[in-house]
């Protein structure tokens, strides 16, 4: 745990001493801000849906940019060699990097809290869907970051890692919308990322959805640890 936290802390520091986190956060705020404002002006409703739904998709576009450097950069620079020859377990390294990114995502989401604050100032929004909406975004982001983490572990090239992560995420995003009938159809529908998100925007916390996002995150974190191990055996 101590190793994991030390690695997470270093990751967070690296994010905020380089421009990546700032640029990604700025882009996220501008784009979601646009959707939020447009929705507010046209529908004149005091809820967050104008931010949450587009926000979930913008998240899909920006998380690979946040995660691409995690392992790829260290492989390129060779620093992974010193990191992995310390007496630390691979899973501690993976979890440290994962939590570091997750914290950065959290900071990004906290900065969007001025949307609900604006709503509070000028209207009387229902707090329930706002809170569950944020929980949903965070859970969705947790799963997405795990996907990007895996992508970053298989290459020393950050661009490749970003494209790969984005590819997997888009696939997981659209997989439910192919309209296949029967068991396969419902399975694909269950596996799809956005389906589970809708409930959260409506103020509902469905345990199945929470479990779903946490399982995706856990699965990809686990795969990343395996990928590190495989890299050694190549």
């Amino acid at each position: 745990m101590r190793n994991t936290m030390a690695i997470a802390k270093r990751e967070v520091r690296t994010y905020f001493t380089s421009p990546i986190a700032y640029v990604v956060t700025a882009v996220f705020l501008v784009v979601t801000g646009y959707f939020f404002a447009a929705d507010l002006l046209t529908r004149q409703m005091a809820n967050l849906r104008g931010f949450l739904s587009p926000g979930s998709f913008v998240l899909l576009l920006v998380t690979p940019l946040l995660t691409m450097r995690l392992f790829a950069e260290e492989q390129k620079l060779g620093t992974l060699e010193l990191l992995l020859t310390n007496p630390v377990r691979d899973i501690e390294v993976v979890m440290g990097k994962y939590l570091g990114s997750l914290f950065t995502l959290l900071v990004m989401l906290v900065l969007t809290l001025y949307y609900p604050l604006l709503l509070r100032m000028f209207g009387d929004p229902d707090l329930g869907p706002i809170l569950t909406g944020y929980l949903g975004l965070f859970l969705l982001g947790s799963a997405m970051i795990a996907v990007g983490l895996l992508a970053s572990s298989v290459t020393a090239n950050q661009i490749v890692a970003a494209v790969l992560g984005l590819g997997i995420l888009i696939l997981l995003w659209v997989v439910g919308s192919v309209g296949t009938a029967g068991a396969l159809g419902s399975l694909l529908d269950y596996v799809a990322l956005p389906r589970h998100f809708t409930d959260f925007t409506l103020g509902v916390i469905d345990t199945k959805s929470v479990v779903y996002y946490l399982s995706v995150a856990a699965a990809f974190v686990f795969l990343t640890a395996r990928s590190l191990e495989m890299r050694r055996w190549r």
Partner: protein
Amino acid sequence: MIEVRSLTKYYGDFPAVEDISFDVKKGEILGFLGPNGSGKTTTMRILTGYLPPSSGTARIAGYDVVDHSLDARRHIGYLPETVPLYTDMTVRDYLDFQGTLRGMDQARRRKRIDEVVGVCRLGEYRDSHIGKLSKGYRQRVGLAQALLHEPDVLILDEPTIGIDPRQVVETRQLIKSFGGDHTVVISSHILPEVSMVCERVLIINEGQVVAIDRPENLSNRLGGTERIHLEVRGPVKEVMGVLRGMKGVQEVTNEGGDSLARYTVECRPGRDLRAEMAEALVSRGWGLLGLQAAGMSLEEIFLKLTTEDQA
């Protein structure tokens, strides 16, 4: 302290290290000598648990590097060839980070950071960003992190490559001072370097151990490692005669004619014949246009050792 048995590593079909075995005793400094691509880095990566061997075993302080990797790694301080450090951190923060990952508590980290910063003479740079340091100072940071947790075993991959000559000398002295407290393995492709620093030298070529011995025994085995190149204007036959007649000369070869010929003289090591040679040639009225001492190149040593072993 280090036991290596029949270690072999294939990259795909390519054997980078083949059937290497050796031991290093506690407190000993072993030099790993070999040309580029001979398998030094690969062997070190196996010892440090970064790469698994294809077959064979290695133990560090009694712990197998595959089966008890974490325990083995706890006893190692490693400086990889490329000195990969986090350039966005300060020296102090970086050392603190590495210390944490090696299970040192805060008080011990503070104390040891001060100590290694002193030993590696990094004092004035302790709060500098590593990215702003010169290659030589980064090398010191690399050494400092390797020493930080007082490991039993230090593994240093080409620790003097790419730094300026004055720092090379300092680094060698530093490494020499590690012996006794630490068991040290250093790699190099420079023969004088390992013979200066190490108590024993392992010569590796194309992934195989060519020789392992004390430096002085190796140079004895190598025989005429000293060689002198001459350029002389004078009758070739007579010049050859004079050179061959000198004590300690083993072989003379030449090319060119009476007006100017180049001679290569192989002599027994330990005696410097240059002054005597110049005297002998000049006193006979021949023109001495060039005189240069040259050691054997590493490639020649390998050739010599490999052919010697086959004979």
